């Protein structure tokens, strides 16, 4: 088999030559090399050697393109390539990841790896061994990828990355326009150009970037699905920065373009003005992002798009286990009411499975008051604080003397607007019930205590009615020594030490005629 082995060595030499030309993300080269690999399974070992060598030896920025080639071959040709390289895939992936820059890392973690998890090859086999994929997952988790933060903005998600995405779609339009000139198409092409200008000229908000990205991703995903039926799914160069327009594939892309355009219209990023005359030419214009991105209400022709959009946008919000369940159940409701609110109210039959967030997801019920708590960390902490609070209250209520109480005055508008109800709840962190209560009343100066006069150093005092001794305690929040549960005797001034228990005051006012108490009130008249 000299001829064969000669042929093989020539083939591999040529192949190595072509692979070394992968210094940029070239779709034609990758497509070509994929085809050659597919047609020469007998040389799989040799071809894989060349590619893995290239991955290890190339300068960091170019390793990714060789990895794309490997990805393309494994997905398109499948067996034997994916089997042979399977056990090394973690090593290869982590190598490229570790030496790659931030953009490469994000692409690897959020796009390439994501596609590996879901791609199946002929016979419904996974692309790479489960155990290798798990290793990659653990590795990425440790590295903290794919990156997310509370603002819903991946660090790599910027105007720039979206401009690159938009560029690749513009290229697609451009080539279509060249082969099939069409006025409608050209309008849309212009709209995309405008979007690019917009992205170039204005810093967009995280949510807006997310929205645009989500739309672009949807198109790509549909693109992938579409292709997988005929050919190969791959994290195509369309998802990576298409450095040169020429690298984009020239294929019919009517659906993608239409979808993108419809999406832009739908989400208000492109506005259409059309005279109400049949056949009049619509006028498309870009809407600047002062228009808030919102999930549209009403009929939605593309609910898959909405799902992806919603999921993308909302996945970055940190939620407790309970909040995740609640979110999921309410998402279902949102979708139903978007099309027919009244119909939902009339006809929906609430089932246990729709109401977990009211019952089962809060399965831990307080035996004393019936309040429900979730069993996640958040809920467990709350329940503990809640039971502590019951305990404190019950202890207080059982000693009848310490719980003589009266209704507080209401707040004025200013204090109410700035009031936080946390102060009323058992979850507020620091203080005991007493200081909490005092804090509330102190806010409005309607207080069940008397502050020890500033020039007075004697903290011991007596109730003028029952003669029981009263000791001042220091209150952190007030920053003062106070005789608690006492009021100043009517008619006494600020520096008076004449105090009485609030409860004694009540008792005495019932017994005595109130003549002498009135005197105190005159002071208040100005």
């Amino acid at each position, binding site marked *: 088999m000299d001829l064969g082995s000669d042929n093989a060595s020539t083939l591999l030499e040529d192949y190595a030559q072509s692979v070394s030309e992968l210094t940029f993300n070239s779709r034609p080269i990758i497509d070509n090399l994929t085809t050659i690999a597919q047609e020469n399974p007998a040389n799989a070992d040799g071809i894989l050697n060349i590619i893995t060598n290239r991955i290890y030896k190339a300068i960091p920025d170019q390793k990714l393109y060789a990895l794309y080639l490997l990805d393309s071959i494994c997905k398109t040709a499948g067996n034997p390539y994916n089997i042979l390289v399977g056990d090394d895939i973690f090593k290869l992936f982590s190598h490229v990841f570790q030496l790659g820059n931030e953009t490469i890392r994000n692409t690897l973690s959020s796009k390439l790896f994501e596609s590996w998890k879901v791609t199946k090859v002929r016979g419904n086999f996974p692309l790479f061994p489960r155990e290798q994929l798990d290793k990659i997952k653990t590795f990425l988790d440790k590295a903290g990828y794919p990156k997310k933060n509370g603002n819903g903005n991946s660090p790599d998600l910027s105007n720039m990355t979206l401009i690159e995405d938009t560029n690749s779609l513009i290229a697609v339009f451009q080539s279509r326009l060249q082969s099939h000139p069409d006025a409608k198409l050209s309008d849309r092409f212009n709209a995309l150009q405008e979007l690019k200008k917009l992205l170039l000229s204005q810093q967009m908000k995280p949510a807006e970037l997310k929205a645009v990205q989500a739309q672009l991703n949807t198109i790509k995903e549909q693109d992938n699905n579409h292709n997988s039926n005929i050919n190969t799914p791959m994290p195509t160069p369309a998802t990576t920065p298409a450095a040169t327009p020429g690298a984009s594939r020239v294929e019919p892309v009517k659906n993608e373009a239409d979808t993108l355009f419809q999406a832009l219209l739908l989400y208000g990023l492109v506005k259409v003005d059309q005279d109400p005359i049949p056949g009049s030419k619509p006028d498309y214009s870009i809407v600047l992002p002062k228009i808030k991105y919102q999930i549209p209400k009403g009929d939605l022709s593309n609910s898959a798009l909405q799902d992806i959009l919603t999921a993308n946008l909302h996945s970055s919000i940190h939620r407790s286990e309970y909040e995740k369940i609640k979110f999921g159940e309410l998402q279902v409701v949102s979708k139903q009411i978007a099309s027919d609110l*009244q119909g939902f109210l009339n006809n929906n039959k609430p089932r246990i499975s729709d109401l977990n967030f009211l019952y089962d997801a809060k399965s831990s019920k307080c035996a004393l008051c019936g309040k429900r708590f979730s069993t996640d960390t958040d809920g467990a902490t709350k329940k503990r604080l809640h039971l502590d609070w019951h305990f404190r209250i019950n202890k207080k209520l059982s000693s009848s003397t310490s719980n003589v109480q009266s209704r*507080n005055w209401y707040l004025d508008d200013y204090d109410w607007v700035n009031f936080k109800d946390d102060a009323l709840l058992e979850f507020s962190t620091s203080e005991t019930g007493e200081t909490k*209560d005092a804090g509330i009343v102190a806010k409005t100066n309607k207080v069940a205590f008397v502050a020890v006069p500033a020039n007075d150093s004697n903290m011991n005092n007596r109730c003028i009615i029952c003669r029981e001794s009263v000791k001042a305690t220091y209150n952190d929040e007030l920053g003062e020594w106070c005789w608690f549960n006492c009021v100043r005797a009517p008619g006494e001034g600020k520096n008076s030490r004449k105090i009485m228990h609030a*409860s004694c005051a009540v008792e005495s006012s019932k017994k005595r005629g109130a003549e002498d108490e009135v005197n105190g009130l005159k002071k208040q008249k100005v």
Partner: protein
Amino acid sequence: MSIPGFGAEAQVYSETGSKGLVEVAIPEGSEWRIEVPHKTILKFKVTEGVAEIFGTELPINVELQISGTKTMVYAPIIYETFKNKTVMSNESEEIVEYLSNDSVMANYINLHLVVEAMRQQVSDNNILNPTELQSGPRVLIVGNGNSGKTSLAKLLSAYAIKSDSTPVLVNLNPRDGVFSLPGSLTATPISDSLDVESANGWGFTTTSGSLFHNPKQPIVKNYGFVDVNENLDLYKYQVSKLGVTVLSRLEEDIACRNGGVIIDTPALGIKDFTVIENIVSDFEVNLIVVLGNERLMIDLKKRFKHKSALQIVKVPKSEGLVEVDEAFIRRTQEESIKEYFNGNYKTRLSPFKTDIDVNDHTIYKCVLSSDVNSALSFLPAEPSSSNLDNSILAITQLPSTHKSGRELLNTSILGYVHVSKFDDAKGKIKVLLPFPGGFPRNMLISTNIGFNE
């Protein structure tokens, strides 16, 4: 004494009742409807399953007492195999109680799901777009008298709490004192469970001591009458003032902002459209819920056609609603006044009795729109035993140095006092204050709310 001790006149029914414990099994999705007259107490406890009173879930094996109420205990459809059992300590001919599976609760739960889904979208937006905050749904409940508006408001509030949301409950029906006395218009963030045992089933505001349920903190505007038609201009004015304050709170408080607003109203029909229109704009309402009145919904849809952001829906009214007569309403009002000063069987409050000199205070009265002067103004009242005895005075927040009556319109209420006796000769007023100590302010408004023992 003008207000006798609370416990003295209420009778625990077990003392006169004849039958023993009665067990009631409430099938899932059914209601146990109960009518308990005033002065009669129904003691009961849930022994098994899940049972709610207008959305507030009841604890298991904890005895509860209710009195002077027409209410229902609902068993949500949760566990197909569980029995929801309630044990009632006594049965009397005075207490009407029966089971019904003719429940509209499914529709009301759907409504909560809708409102909660709206809150979810808003709170997500407020995390993602912290510079462009939105507010949760502002829900206005309208309908005829006796259509169950307050019950629905209670239910939406209770389910909101169950869903970890904090809506602001606005009561625009001066007939009911919600966290306050009749004659008031109030707004209250619902930050914790409601107290089903309290006089009107809402619960307590803050006190100087400890309560079984966390208290609520309302803002209180005075209207002074129980009927909105007594002075419609004043009513509308106070509603708009309350609206400003509530919307300001939403600006300052992210929990309330996400929770939105739930607005209960007096009986309003299409003839009161200007009132409804005012409320919609004062509170930036974006969802009107019409209770059991198809016609009203259609009319409102027509009239609000221009408001594209305003959604209008209807939900059926409960067949279990029983007509409440004037006497019953009056008694309920008295109970909430009593509870304001004296508390209830679980939480006793100590009010403070004192005398004040009429010359140290300025008392204004609310005018009827039929009075000659501008309907909005308050007139200085000439205090006399005939117009003050056994009445409620509202203490305004205006500082004691304040001289003019003009700003009475723009102030809120610090609290209420009850006048037991005005001594014309001495110029002394015998009053009951909720809180011990000196009389805090001297600008008062006499209300049309009377209270006799």
